[in-house]
């Protein structure tokens, strides 16, 4: 089984509620650590303009490049649900290993705080909330109901299987676990 996210770009207004909810739930005070981020994309020329946002965290890829890249074997993928896990004790820290995981990831998901030799942090899909039968906090926070969470099979059943959207290219190599509804 593989858990994944659904993102309805047509609904997203770029309000950042998911970003703040994530920072609050996981107590991330260093704002350079972007476990979940919202990225705007403006296209076109006045007055014919397209504007969309993409809300993104780690995509918990089927074949995670970060895991392969880690020299310390600190990154693993849970067999039961495919959630990526970083062993904070094993991670060498950003200054000791040149952040190979971040370089390998097509989506810039691995995050490091500003502090010296900070360890890698990544979206945990709020496993603590899953244990409580709640969805990840970003999903439950979205005022637009643009985010959803479930097994990839459930999500495909519910939303189809669109895997690309403006601002996001599907990687055949890593197979990210995310489904989209595009705005345009």
């Amino acid at each position, binding site marked *: 089984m593989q858990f994944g996210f659904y993102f309805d770009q047509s609904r997203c*207004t770029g309000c950042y509620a998911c970003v703040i909810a994530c920072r609050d739930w996981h107590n991330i005070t260093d704002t350079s650590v972007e476990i979940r981020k919202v990225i705007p994309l403006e296209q076109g020329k006045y007055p014919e303009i397209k504007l969309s946002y993409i809300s993104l965290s780690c995509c918990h890829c089927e074949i995670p490049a970060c895991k392969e890249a880690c020299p310390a074997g600190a990154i693993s993928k849970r067999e039961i649900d495919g959630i990526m896990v970083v062993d904070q004790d094993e991670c060498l820290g950003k200054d000791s290993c040149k952040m190979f995981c971040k370089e390998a990831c097509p989506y810039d998901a691995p995050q490091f705080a500003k502090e010296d030799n900070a360890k890698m942090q990544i979206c945990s899909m709020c496993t603590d909330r899953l244990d409580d039968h709640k969805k990840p906090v970003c999903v*439950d*926070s979205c005022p637009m109901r643009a985010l959803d969470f479930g097994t990839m099979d459930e999500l495909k059943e519910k939303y189809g299987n669109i895997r690309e959207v403006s601002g996001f290219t599907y990687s055949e190599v890593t197979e990210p676990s995310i489904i989209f509804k595009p705005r345009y």
Partner: protein
Amino acid sequence: MLKVHVEDHIITRIETDDGEGTQLRACARGRAYRQRVYSPDRLKYPMKRTGERGEGKFKRISWDQAFEEVSSELTRIKETYAPEAILNISYSGNTGTFLHNQLSLFRLLTMFGGFTPIWGSASFWGSLFSSETTFGTVTAGHTGDDIPNAKYIIMWGWNPAETVQKTNTAHYLSLAKEKGIKIVSIDPRFTDSAAAFASQWIPIRPGTDTAMIIAMAYVMINEDLHDKKFLEKYTTGFDKFEAYVLGTDDKQPKTPAWAETITGVKAETIKQIARQYAQNKPSKILTLGAPGRTAFGEQFHRSLSTLSAMTGNIGIYGGEPAAFGLPPVGLQPAAGTGLIARKMTGNLPEGARQRPALHITKLWDAILKGKDGGYPADIKMAYITNGNPVNQFMNSNKAVEALKKLETIIVHEQFMTPTAKYADILLPVNTQFERNDIIRPWQGGPYCIYLNKVIDSLYESKSDLEICTGLAEKLGLSGYNDLTEDEWLRDFWEAAKDMTDSKPLPDYDTFKKEGIFKIKTDKPVIAFEKQIKDPENNPFPTPSGKIEIYSKKLEERNTPNLPPIPMYIETWEGKNDPLLEKYPLQLITTHSKKRIHSNMDNIQWMKDLEPHVVWINSEDAKTRGIENNDKAHVFNDRGKISIKVKVTERIIPGTVSIGQGAWYSPDKEGVDRGGCANVLLKDEHSPAGAFCSNTCLVEINKSKN
């Protein structure tokens, strides 16, 4: 709605509504509130100024000394001059809460013997005035769940994706879009709302919306698209408006071609929008305040409501009076201001005008000029709570000049804001998590919340009510606050029963225990249903009992540029102002999703979401040699601010846009390094009292720093 987790008296996390039905999900600002409560910048204890005003240098004093000094200053000013020498600048920092708000000081100073009050609203005065004039009430909106009932929607200068307005408004717009309803955005900017919901964006020059509306009326009259039976039955004075639109008197028919030269919107587009709005009934025009925050802003709202009457879109599902958006459900505004206010007179807008009050745009001028300048009082002392007027009222440099002239300034605050820096005595206020209160949604709606105290007041902070209670004791005022917090709230809740159509309200203890009261409605709630279905027995609350397109009251008031019918009046600092040669760009000041006005600007989680920037169209940037992310100065005769540039296609050429609320921070040369938009705004209001924050000319230059 916020659900706050507390462990060992410490707030650990914030969640939002996870209940049944349509959840009231909080925006980013609410989700970030924990960082506000625990910000290292919180004011911790009472302080007395040691440096110059504005330097921000203070020393700690005790509460007893603070009460002693503030009460003796109040007494000295009253006895040396007059009570009116005390200017009460208590604004909207906690508006909507029943107990802990700006009215604590209002009550204290009233019992003390008087003061000079302020009037006006920086937000929506044009809309408020227009609603009262046209419909006789501000309860003139539909609940958000009616949005998908429309067949056609115009978002006019309206951006709820960022401003929220009512919780779930944006959610209902997305449902409408998914249902296939056509949504149009008329706005100088391609906003997040335009991008998310609209299939058509019509850029328009700021301050000219009324011309487009009146040309739409022309198209409807010319093509016989208006609902003459509705106008006949429910409105007054359409004939006079029609004569104006057709140019019977002034020989200027208000054609789409006429409007095109004013608005920059193609005549063909104006015709298309007029036809689509009239022919897709029920149709909604949704707006709030922005186009009305202009030199003659009330005309925008008056003419917009006239369009809704011309198409009979009033009192029906999927329609909208295009007026002030309070729906007739839940607790009405009078309940929100609580007993503290209702025991006082003159708090309501009309009442405030009858007192010798100062308009919020005129405070600085009044302090500088006093009675010699025609103002009602010579102000010697300012007492400021629940607001950041240096930053949020117009002309910040003039604010500083005025505040430096005063003998005494007292400020209640949570942070060292640009205004707090000018205090002589600065008193720390607690946050909404540190006291009990009740709140109704500010623009109405089918719920109200018991805001229970989740932690004790941090440091030595107190609520405004506690501070004023301390002062009342020093001043020997008995009866200021004889009740406990719980007794006040219980009284308010009892009284609220008379100020709601949602009966019965749960009893106080149940409400307090459950924390929220959601009013179950089986369908949307709309305004004026009874007035339309059965007009004989349900007249509109206007003098004529009808929708007043022509207002006899305005005719009698006979104020220049406040005509009895809606008209287009050209703004000052618009495209025909000679000042345009020197300052060729129109400035609009918008609401940022990172802030609630100037609130949250110092909160890191919010601050880092997006940079604070001025928007400029690529065409205007090119002629000035400005590139994206450059530093620039935006300036006019009133001041100069330093700000980063966003070169974008998302704004009409000739206009620049700055999110209001960034904190004013002038350097030695007088350049505001904080990028506070109000440095640039003219301290003037419309004839009815609208805050003209979208009527302003500026120039912009690339700068080195």
